[in-house]
């Protein structure tokens, strides 16, 4: 997020797109509701009638995967209505003329044809956002998990830049991170292209820095992404070490994942449960869990905070850093002298420009937002104040593309996926908690009542849902949360592996999977073999 969570109470216009915030980030949503009690207006763009839509001032129920068209049309209206922040654009950005020309033909009427959102509503939303004193944008995977994820994000950046809604209190471009420490995993350099602190591995200065710090020769080339690595299993990748990820259930195209992991010569998994992924391993290490380890998580607002051990680990489980240190010593790897989590964290701080001013003791109360470039620095709650990382904010000109897969006669229904309030990912945790499991004990496919009838289904009955990659049997829930023609499932239940269906394509730049769109066919279960 460019701005802190506390800023969520300060905008006068809030634009939520591709985020089912009340379910995926509930406490953040309570802060938005407070802004609304103080008079803020809310625009919600989502294919489904999510709870946020219930309280929104303008609802934009776009067809899945049509975000670029919607956002381009909003930019068009903002230009046409003279709502561009000309002085911000002149002082802080470049490339605006190209954008102005680019969006000239993206009329709301054109966008209505693609998105299904009435042109008048697109106009209303654009004018509301364009007139905001403090306009803030919030999004999650509904924006990024598309083949055009990068284009979607750039379209949102264009809106923020052209209206000057960045680098100030109560504004900003705010992606909400889904997992507790997914931000931290990136900060720590668990990326094929970056060392810790987002330092590119291909920069000779960084190579020198880490060569000296670790006392080894370093790889001069970028690694491949996990998505590519799964494609390469059995060809160029022959061993994997997977830590705390249930790849087989969470990643798209389950059959492909399973096949990939099975073709490895050596698979080692570190986890707290014997997940479907761990069950395929040659060696499984028992990890100490939350509540049993000391460490640091960085949340979605770039705030590192300490987690602490309350109880001893179960059985012989050990913290991940300890397991990796032992393994490194067996393999005679240098520079693994850690005795505690604190040692590891302090080494990260010393090597990362974003954490340089922090250490184990300083994050005890979680008072800083990174970057904290040196000791004594107060941290950076709001990014891009005064200047952008690259100097000037750059407008890009993305164009609408169809999703990797579109509906046709054979697969006539859109499937989109996401989270439910009570569950988290593949339910390895919430499925073993009585309360959350009580609320949502099984997977349901949410279908508009009209479609339930049209497809010959029954509310509460079983359906067979199939895509070009696989099929699942799932219970039907009739609900107007789903629009006609689009159905919804979570990816939480391994007995209804929705990832057997997804995986139609990937963003060419980031390799992020298009989990939000896939074409399916749905039939009553009795008509087939169950």
């Amino acid at each position: 997020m460019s701005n802190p969570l506390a800023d969520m109470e300060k905008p006068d216009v809030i634009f939520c797109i591709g985020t089912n915030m009340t379910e995926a980030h509930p406490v953040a949503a309570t802060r938005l509701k407070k802004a609304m009690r103080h008079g803020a207006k809310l625009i919600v763009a989502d294919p489904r009638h999510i709870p946020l839509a219930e309280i929104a001032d303008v609802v934009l129920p776009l067809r899945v995967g049509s975000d670029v068209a919607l956002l381009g049309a909003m930019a068009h209206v903002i230009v046409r209505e003279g709502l561009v922040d000309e002085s911000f654009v002149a002082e802080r950005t470049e490339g605006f003329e190209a954008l102005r020309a680019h969006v000239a033909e993206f009329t709301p009427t054109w966008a209505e044809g693609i998105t299904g959102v009435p042109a008048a509503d697109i106009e209303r939303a654009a004018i509301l956002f364009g007139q905001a004193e403090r306009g803030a944008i919030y999004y999650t995977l509904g924006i990024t998990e598309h083949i055009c994820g990068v284009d979607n994000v750039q379209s949102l950046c264009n809106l923020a830049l052209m209206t000057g809604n960045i680098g100030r209190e109560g504004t900003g471009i705010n992606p909400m991170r889904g997992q507790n420490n997914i931000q931290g995993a990136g900060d720590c350099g668990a990326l094929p292209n970056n060392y810790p602190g987002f330092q590119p591995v291909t920069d000779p200065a960084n190579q020198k820095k880490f060569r000296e710090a670790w006392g080894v020769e370093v790889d001069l080339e970028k690694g491949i992404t996990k998505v590519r690595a799964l494609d390469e299993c059995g060809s160029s990748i022959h061993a994997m070490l997977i830590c705390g990820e249930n790849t087989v259930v969470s990643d798209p195209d389950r059959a492909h994942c399973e096949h990939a992991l099975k073709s490895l010569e050596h698979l080692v998994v570190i986890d707290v449960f014997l997940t479907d992924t761990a069950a395929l391993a040659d060696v499984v290490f028992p990890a100490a869990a939350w509540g049993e380890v000391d460490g640091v998580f960085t949340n979605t607002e770039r705030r590192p905070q300490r987690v602490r051990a309350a109880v001893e680990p179960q059985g012989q489980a050990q913290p991940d850093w300890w397991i990796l240190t032992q393994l490194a010593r067996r393999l005679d790897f240098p520079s693994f002298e850690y005795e505690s989590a604190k040692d590891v964290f302090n080494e990260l701080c010393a090597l990362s420009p974003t954490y340089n001013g922090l250490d184990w003791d300083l994050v005890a109360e979680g008072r800083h937002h990174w970057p904290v470039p040196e000791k004594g620095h107060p941290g950076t709650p709001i990014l891009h104040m005064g200047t952008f990382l690259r100097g000037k904010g750059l407008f890009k000109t993305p164009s609408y593309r169809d999703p990797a897969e579109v509906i046709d006669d054979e697969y006539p229904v859109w499937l989109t996926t996401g989270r439910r309030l009570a569950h988290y990912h593949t339910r390895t945790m919430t499925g073993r908690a009585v309360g959350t499991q009580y609320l949502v004990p099984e997977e349901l496919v949410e279908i508009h009542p009209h479609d339930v009838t049209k497809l010959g289904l029954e509310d509460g009955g079983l359906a067979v849902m199939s895509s070009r990659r696989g099929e699942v049997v799932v219970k039907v829930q009739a609900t107007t949360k789903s629009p006609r023609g689009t159905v919804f499932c979570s990816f939480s239940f391994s007995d209804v592996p929705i990832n057997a269906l997804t995986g139609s394509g990937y963003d060419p730049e980031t390799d992020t999977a298009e989990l939000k769109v896939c074409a399916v066919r749905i039939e009553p279960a009795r008509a087939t073999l169950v």
Partner: protein
Amino acid sequence: MKNTLTLDGQRVDFEEGESLYQVARRHTQAIPTLCYDDRLEAFGACRLCVVELEGSRNPVASCTTLAQTDMVVKTKTEAIERHRKTLMELVVSENPKGVAIDPLRGKASQELAHLAVRYQADGSRFAGKQSGHSRPDDPNPMIVRDYDHCISCYRCVRVCAEQEGDYAISIANRGFHTQITTEFDGLLENSACTFCGQCVQTCPTGALADGRALRHVDTPGEIERTRSVCPYCGVGCSVEILSKNETIVGVQPAMDGPANEGALCVKGQFGWDWVQHPDRLKNPLVRKDGVLVDASWDEALERAAEGFRKVRDTHGRHAIYGVASGRAPHESAYSMQKFIRVGFGTNNIDNCSRA
């Protein structure tokens, strides 16, 4: 002097917009309250926080009275304390006797009990009156609804509306017939309730109680509190993990958590039982003859190391790939990338953010 007033004979300063209750809390000891929660609009209903204000005929509620320059305030005169004792007796009379309010019920659950002791209030003077009836028929395993203990402070209703924006519960009737209820008087799960547990944590009597934690009333040991952060989503809510010896017995929100300011959702509040679930992996496993079997650390580490060595020697350094966790702490992700980079000389490392 501007922004100073006299509090129990002392000259004290205050900030613009502070209530007399807040000024007193900052300077002397806290004035007793039952309907007060820092995060909610002051309500002025329980009348325990009344103070004498010079120039005012009747005592005023300190939580709803803003501090003004040169006010002269007395927080505990004999008359005020007598009034508080009577009020406490009335309140205590509404509660069933002999029912222990375990601190596991909720964060604020001891407030009434503590004040009852402080004012030696036993409630027999008003015995027989009671508002609210419990809902043992609500089968949800998270929120116990012992409304027999309800004192109609409305903190639950207010937190649900003001803090959560959920408006799941409301007040029916008045006086001794007051009842906290959902729409249509039904079960919580059929209402707008999201099971965030905020009502439980603000209830000053334990009438609303944490059903997950209550299983551990008889678990031996003192309750210890460990400050941590929720393991679920990226908001990063601060929590206190409650434990007895080596058993986790509950989670409560940390009121000063920078990301959540005392709020939690159902996952953070009630979703912790997995940590000590019998399914946890308790020892290393290695595959022998096609099946995973228990192994010692020594054996498992050796098998893992040997496998990596072999693949590196036959297929080269880029044949090995690491996937770090987005849930484990930094020390895990940092060690993972270093293990792969230092150990094999490859940048073949990623985390689970692309799926």
